[in-house]
């Protein structure tokens, strides 16, 4: 924005202001209506949703699955999506800090005099993209279950194998249905039974191909149950 554009803006703004109405009572009226709406929403939320108290804080737990308040879901999900340990500090402090700094200095980056959103497509497009990304991460964070839980329906006779899969940390690397690490280190297992025979699955569990650890420690019976369950997925 050069000086003339600044002057232009101020001059036009001065005129628009002269054509406008006084703040009191015209703008105040709208504000007050909005206050009432906000207060009503707040009261209804408080009455309907209440203020439930969770179980008491227990630092000795090993079974609790911590989840943040909804407005931190996008950060929470960011931490889950970024898997390689070398990138962990970037997910925890790097990206949030960079985003905040960019947001803070936005008026000094974007010095274009244009203010109409559809005439500054780059800025508007970026903003819409960020909003969609945040909404999507929030959605993922809200729906992402515990990594020890599989929601996929199974035949009850494979229930035991399913439980072992859920409890053994498979979902840290693999995805099964809606659960687990989508795009994680390992391949998706939702339809593994269609591509691999039971024998091959069982062999993989024992040998631990590539970066996958061996699950020999499960014991013969459990390995068979897991292989049965995974082979049933197709």
């Amino acid at each position, binding site marked *: *924005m*050069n000086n*003339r*554009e600044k002057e*232009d*803006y101020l*001059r036009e*703004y001065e*005129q*628009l*202001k*002269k*054509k*406008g*109405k*006084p*703040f*009191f009572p015209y*703008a105040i009226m*709208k*504000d007050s*209506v*909005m*206050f009432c709406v*906000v207060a009503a929403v*707040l009261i209804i*939320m*408080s009455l309907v*949703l*209440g*203020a439930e*108290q*969770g179980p*008491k*804080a*227990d*630092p000795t737990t090993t079974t*609790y699955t*911590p*989840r*943040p*308040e909804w*407005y*931190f879901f996008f950060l929470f999900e960011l931490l889950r999506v970024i898997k390689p340990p070398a990138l962990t500090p970037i997910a*925890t402090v790097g990206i949030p800090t960079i985003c*905040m700094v960019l947001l*803070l*200095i*936005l*008026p000094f980056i*974007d*010095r274009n*005099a*244009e*203010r*109409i*959103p559809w005439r*500054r497509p780059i*800025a508007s497009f970026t*903003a819409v993209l960020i909003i969609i990304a945040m909404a999507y991460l929030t959605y993922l964070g809200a729906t992402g279950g515990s990594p020890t839980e599989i929601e996929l329906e199974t035949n009850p006779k494979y229930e035991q194998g399913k439980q072992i899969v859920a409890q053994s940390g498979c979902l840290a690397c693999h995805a099964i249905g809606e659960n687990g690490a989508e795009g994680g280190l390992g391949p998706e297992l939702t339809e593994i039974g269609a591509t691999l025979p039971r024998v091959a699955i069982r062999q993989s569990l024992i040998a631990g191909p590539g970066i996958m650890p061996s699950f020999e420690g499960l014991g013969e019976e459990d390995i068979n149950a897991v292989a049965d369950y995974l082979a049933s997925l197709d």
Partner: protein
Amino acid sequence: MKSPFSAKDQPADTKAEDALAQEAEVELTRSEKLAKHSKKAAHHGAEGGKDLAGWVDTRTNSSGIFTAMMSRHVPKGTNWFYTLGSATMFIFAMQAITGVFLAMYYTPSATQAYASITHLTNEVFLGEFVRGLHKWGASLMIILIFLHMARTFFFGAYKYPRELNWVIGVVLLVLTMVMGLTGYLLPFDQRSFWATIVANNITASGPVVGPYLADFLRAGPDFSATTLSRFYALHMLVVPGLMAALIGAHLFLVVKLGTTAPPWVRMARPKHARPTETVAAGVATADVADVPVADERAEETEAPAEDESDSGEQASS
């Protein structure tokens, strides 16, 4: 003539006259203003020594500020999106009020916090309701602040001359998130505790200063006896104090610079002056824009009244 709005000696009949009177006031020099003021003061003293507003005004000269704040004009085209900022402030005020009352029942101690919340929620009259207001108020405030920010962004309202106000706004957003985070721990249930542990460790993973900052927040290497009181002090005193101050600065700048008009609301221009609009759009080069600007200035001094009257009908939204 007793209300502070009657600073001008005769009530304005029409908006046009009102605007003229404002213009006139702007043109008054400092000394003229002072003289006018003392006259008004004398007037108050003579007529209504018992008039409290007048009494205070003669001693504080506050009606001028009040009038300037209240009767300033908001530009043409101001719509419902412009209520998001004040709605956020309203929620902040609600949070402050409910927070103060919650503090009356709350004990910031690792051993008693949970029990005090149970008592507050289940036994105190309207306890769950007030705690619900505070809890959901936080969510609502975050939503409103983001909507307010989106409005500011898409209307280009962070641009000259309001850059500083955007910066203050972003700091307020961060502080609101900090409020959410520090407030979280206080009920001392599982969710609070583990969220705090994670948040603290996120802080700790910041390079170089992170570990020390986390130690400062926890008052030690692990969750300690005074961690809760630290979060309480931050949530109750430090952050809200900062926020109140910054909201004051934010509002001051809003009053001083005025709220923006939606960017698509424009004053109609004489036809030959159109190119300036495209200049503003950043399309035309500076050379092209040079001539029309000069033209426009001349135009304006000649017939500003005409220019305004027809545009007003065209673009009232």
